[in-house]
């Protein structure tokens, strides 16, 4: 039975090899999937970064006294665009994603301030360009959040796969690091309304 056991060993070796290849490939696939999912966010974020200067340009004529806010919006937009460029090069990278998260949260904050300001100017609110831009921006915002959800789902699947047995035996040696989620803090949730007595 010497030969049969040799054959058995060969088959077992093949199965082991197949397992390693399979696990490795599945990790690569999942990594590609979340990177791909990021590209979907990237498209919408860029669209948003293109819209914001238009919005500011339109609002400028009405909000001449609010130059500070407008400049803050542009600054936040530029910071977020830079952070996005970095994140797009290496989606899932912890520091890049954290930087993008905070830049996006900051941008969300100043945009909220701008919208609140606009409420006080009925002429601006009635401007059709402004209305279109705001509508477009809301829709893009929705698309970002939808794409973000898909990205985070993909990251979770990848992270889970890389942590569970037996794939975790492969993840270490082949350098499959953990991926970072993309979370945006909603400013209104974070800053509780101040109540003074």
């Amino acid at each position, binding site marked *: 039975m010497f030969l049969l056991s040799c054959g*058995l060993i060969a088959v077992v070796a093949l199965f082991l*090899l197949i397992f390693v290849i399979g696990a490795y490939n599945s990790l690569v696939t999942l990594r590609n999937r979340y990177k791909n999912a990021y590209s979907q966010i990237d498209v919408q974020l860029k669209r948003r970064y293109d819209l914001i200067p*238009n919005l500011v340009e339109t609002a400028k004529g009405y909000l001449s006294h609010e130059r500070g806010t407008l400049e803050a919006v542009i600054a936040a937009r530029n910071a977020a665009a830079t952070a996005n460029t970095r994140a797009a090069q290496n989606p899932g990278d912890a520091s890049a994603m954290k930087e993008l998260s905070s830049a996006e949260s900051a941008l969300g904050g100043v945009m909220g301030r701008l919208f609140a300001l606009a409420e006080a100017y009925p002429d601006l609110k009635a401007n059709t360009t402004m209305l279109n831009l705001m509508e477009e921006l809301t829709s893009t915002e929705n698309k970002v959040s939808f794409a973000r959800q898909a990205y985070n789902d993909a990251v979770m699947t990848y992270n889970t796969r890389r942590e569970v047995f037996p794939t975790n035996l492969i993840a270490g040696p082949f350098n499959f690091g953990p991926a970072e989620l993309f979370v945006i803090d909603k400013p209104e949730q974070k800053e509780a309304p101040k109540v003074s007595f």
Partner: protein
Amino acid sequence: MDFFERQDKARRHTTLLVVYFVVAVALLIGAVYLVVVVIFGGIELKNAVDQTTTTTSWSHAKMFLATAASTLGVISAGSFFKTLSLARGGRAVAELLDGRLVNSNSTDGNERKLLNVVEEMAIASGVPVPQVYVMDGEAGINAFAAGHSASDAAISVTRGAMTLLTRDELQGVIAHEYSHLLNGDMKLNLRLMGLIFGILCLTVIGRILIRARGKNAWPFLLLGLALIIIGWVGVLFGRLIQAAVSRQREFLADASAVQFTRNPLGLAGALKKIGGASEGSELQSARAEEVSHFFFANGLKSEFFGFATHPPLEERIKALDPSFDGKFPRVVLPDTPAQAAPPPLPGVSPLVQPPPPPSQAQPPPPPLPTAKPPPLPMVRPPPLPVGPATVAQQTIIADIGRPRTEHLQYAVDLHQAVPPAIQTAAHDPLGAHALVCAFLLAEDTAAREKQLEELGRRTSDAVRQETIRIWPEVQGIPAHARIPLVDLALPALRRLSPAQFEQFRAAVNALIASDNQTDIFEFMLQKIVMRHLDTRFYPERRPVTQYYDLRPLVRDAGILLSATAYAGAEDPARAQAAFAKGAESLGRIARAEIPWLPPTECELPHLSAALDRFAQSLPQIKKNVLTACAETVTFDALIQPREAEILRAIADTLDCPIPPFLQA
């Protein structure tokens, strides 16, 4: 030879392939056994001479069983593994070759050109838009299509093909790939890939064995060496089969591509560029060999012992362009790789307006010198007319899976006539989600409000808002543009995460259920969407052929024909007459009564189940049933657009794509 005969032929090819393969495996087992006998038999003999005992006498039957079992085990394990990893369809192959999924809402010029060409072809042939991949690392000019069916197909092109080819040439290449897609070649290719991989595993075992070290290791070294040789001979045979199957199909695909675009110079131009480019059609990827039979042109550096998977370039060009003098134009590759174009974004100085974003796909140059309506950006273009008069039943069936130039022209026009807002929506996951939901909304305001509320509950506020936003635009979309739009939206919908897809499914089902009017067309639309997406999210639920005869499906045929008849005629008597005409064409085949059913017995759930069963039947049965449906629909000389679209939807659920109906 029509679509169904070609499908049948592809099926027979597959059977033949399995027979070849069984013979090959039997020969391999024989060869391995021979080697084992020589090597280990030799040891036996030596031992016997040395010790003059026969304690370890081997029975040859046992030895044979052992070798056969292990060889078979290795080959089937390998094949099984490969087939399993290919179950995800075309994208599995595309990802194997380091393809990058192109974003359906990409604004990059080259990517947009590629996507537009693919989308137009899809509309023209009536199949869902496949996933498009670009192999960024490949500078040569090549392309391939892979998948089990149109639902999970992926088209993949090299960076060279995307950047070096003109739109006409690219169109020729993509049309060639579509003909593989419509002829059922891809399924065959995938199966071949799985089987050859199993044989290849023998050489892998051989490589493990020749690493054996130790005093008594030499038999293993010998065995390993022999296994490598045997494995390679086996792979050689596999490649032979592969090349034989592939070569004859390449000419066929070239011919179909020309029939499709009626522009042989486009395809010939692409082939000439391959001849002239320094990289040719070669691929760098180490895995190219495994998939060489998928490609548009020879992807390997050297021909495999003279068994090329593709006919010579010159021969293919001559078949398309008889004036070809054998001289290839020089093609200069661009120095900078087109990928990784730096994002033009950051650094907008404060309060300065940036250039407007590239909002829409640039209008492609016309592939044919015919007059085309210029794209109207903001005004809704006049709805494209559908020939309401006479579509002959014969032409409907003959056109299946065989789009012509007129269909392509129609697709180009339709593609440009769709309002920009809807185009944008169809290319974005959230937008596509909203688009499908908007198709299912009721006309009635109160009912719609209820539906939207339900939608918000099932999904998220973002989806509800987006649906409300595009609803006014969606309302104006005529019936004949809805199936193409759904086909356009599928690549974006495939990018939903599994969790988002579950929400989408629940939302769509809820919208259908809450709509009190049972509209068969809307129902068919959602069935198309779900069927194509299920192959993406549940690859294991692939339908397999289960019905080889019409007889068990007689009642289902009754449901299908009755429902079609009711959809076409208000008056019950006329409906029954239409049904009778359809049933008559089936009656001879089924040799049984096709039951005429009251409306309560052919409601949407019944219809759905009936269609699912027909989807699992032989191509010839599908053909007969579709012919009967076409007879029913064409009963009255007047075909309403809606009726025509229901027929297309039914054909789609049976995997028999009907090109759009053209104005007579």
